């Protein structure tokens, strides 16, 4: 089927069928944040357990969604687990800039500032499997699916930071 393979790469389907880090963490001590895609009704719940050193000691993903949102969440959880909050934020910026071709075309307000921290840590935080989601950019309505869990993670980390300060 034309074009579909660009979107539904095998690794995406693999994460969709066997999502990593799926489930819940007891909150508290973990932090729980919900995200919604108002377009399609998808919901994602991100649980993060941040240790004393600012490291994401554990992360679990719950909720319902399409293959793109579920696989993106699964890959995200695998990529940030065990990393520091700063590293997770840097990876989020890198991922979102991959997903924001459209916004950059329009003028990229703010995207550059966001992309900066990524440069510092790209050595440790490579997109890896997440590169497979690059094809989503060709299907603009699906970009929100791919970024839902990342926005929810960002919100969760912000909330954790606020609670600690």
């Amino acid at each position, binding site marked *: *089927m*034309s*074009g*579909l393979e660009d*979107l*539904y790469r095998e690794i995406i*389907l693999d994460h969709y*069928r066997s999502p990593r880090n799926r489930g819940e963490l007891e909150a508290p001590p973990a932090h729980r944040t919900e995200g919604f895609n108002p*377009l*399609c*009704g*998808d*919901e994602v719940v991100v649980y993060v357990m941040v240790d004393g050193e600012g490291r994401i000691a554990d992360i679990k993903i719950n909720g*319902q*969604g*399409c*293959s*793109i949102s*579920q696989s993106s969440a699964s890959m995200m959880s695998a990529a940030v687990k065990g990393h520091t909050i700063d590293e997770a934020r840097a990876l989020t910026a890198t991922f979102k800039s991959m997903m924001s071709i459209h916004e950059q075309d329009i003028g990229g307000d703010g995207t550059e500032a966001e992309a900066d921290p990524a440069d510092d840590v790209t050595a440790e935080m490579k997109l890896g499997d997440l590169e497979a989601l690059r094809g989503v950019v060709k*299907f603009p309505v*699906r970009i929100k*699916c791919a970024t839902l869990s990342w926005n929810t993670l960002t919100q969760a980390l912000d909330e954790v930071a606020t609670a600690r300060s």
Partner: protein
Amino acid sequence: MTTTPPSPPLATLDVAAIRRDFPVLSQRQDGHRLVFLDSAASSQHPRQVLDAMTSFYETSYANVHRGVYQLAERATAAYEGARGKVARFIGAPSSNEVVFTKNATEAINLVAGSWGRANLGPGDAVVLTLMEHHANIVPWQMLAAQLGFEIRWVPLTDDGHLDLTDLDRLLDGAKLFAFTAMSNVLGTLNPVARLTAAAHEKGALALVDACQWVPHLPTDVVAMGADFVAFSAHKMLGPSGIGVLWARAELLEAMPPFLGGGGMILNVTTEGFVADAPPGRFEAGTPPIAEAVGLAAAVDYLTGLGMDAVHRHEVELTGYALRTLRAEVGDALTIYGPSEPSERGGVLSIALEGVHAHDISQVLDTQAVCIRPGHHCAKPLMRVLGAPATARASIYVYNDTDDIDALAAALVAARDFFKL
């Protein structure tokens, strides 16, 4: 109702001829025939509607109710003529009971902001159902937050009908019962006259969201027993940008204005204003003029087909779709809503085991099959169904069995692509 064309008593539609009237349907997408199954969201337009609007713009456009030159008079006559056509189409006793709005959403907001604000307060109740579109939920929630009345919900049965067991108790002390005539997710056709009678028995008014009814079945607002009826032109072959609120004349007479501005006043001084009579009172600002002309042409087109024939066609095609999809796609398929075609309109909300609605739609798009994934602006209903999203296929006058066959084939392709 409007007169049906001279045709044998049980004729349905000549879909091949109808399709030739719809320019958009003649295009091909990636070599496939375009299969448009999203009319519940918004329908396509026959040449007759497009021509009527173009010709109006080319010969008769001007602002209405203002100028004395001939062009302005023609524009006003066309606009008011459209009001009359709509009134006859829905069995309204008077065209003064037809208020043009932007869409059904605005029509319901008008009732909430005008009648609701004047008549509701603490201790009152508005009764809704769990199958409402957000358009018939959020305006009431917004108003309830300001005025402090209670919102009560009519639950659903397992097969997607309203559960009326407790209706009388729910209506006790209520001032308004606002419900959809047909669910835009389940396709369920509600017993409108019975529901409005139940409301009246308890002293409540009845608002009927007829967005999915007026385009598909003969409509008679008096036989419905409704006090308010709302619908949109863009779901009945007309243009976007215009909707209708019908309300009983006495109600409109007593209602305060909704939006303020030009066109809705008799007089304005520095001290205040005097509002015009209905329907002008509720049409502040320049209205959707060419859109009204387009709506009138859509009404003519549907009248020509005959609304009985339209409904028969949809019941037949829905029955065909239910049988074909079940046979072709098999056990992985769930179709929500009533299983009996005569109890439902042509809306099929589908779930495919292990394949999210978004992914179904994406695969279907590669076969030029246009359906809609999502919550269909009915999140409380989706919660009852236990599904965050469904894939919705909806049919109209231009759909035929080839469209359903293409849908079935595309669903099989989606099922096999994901091989879950």
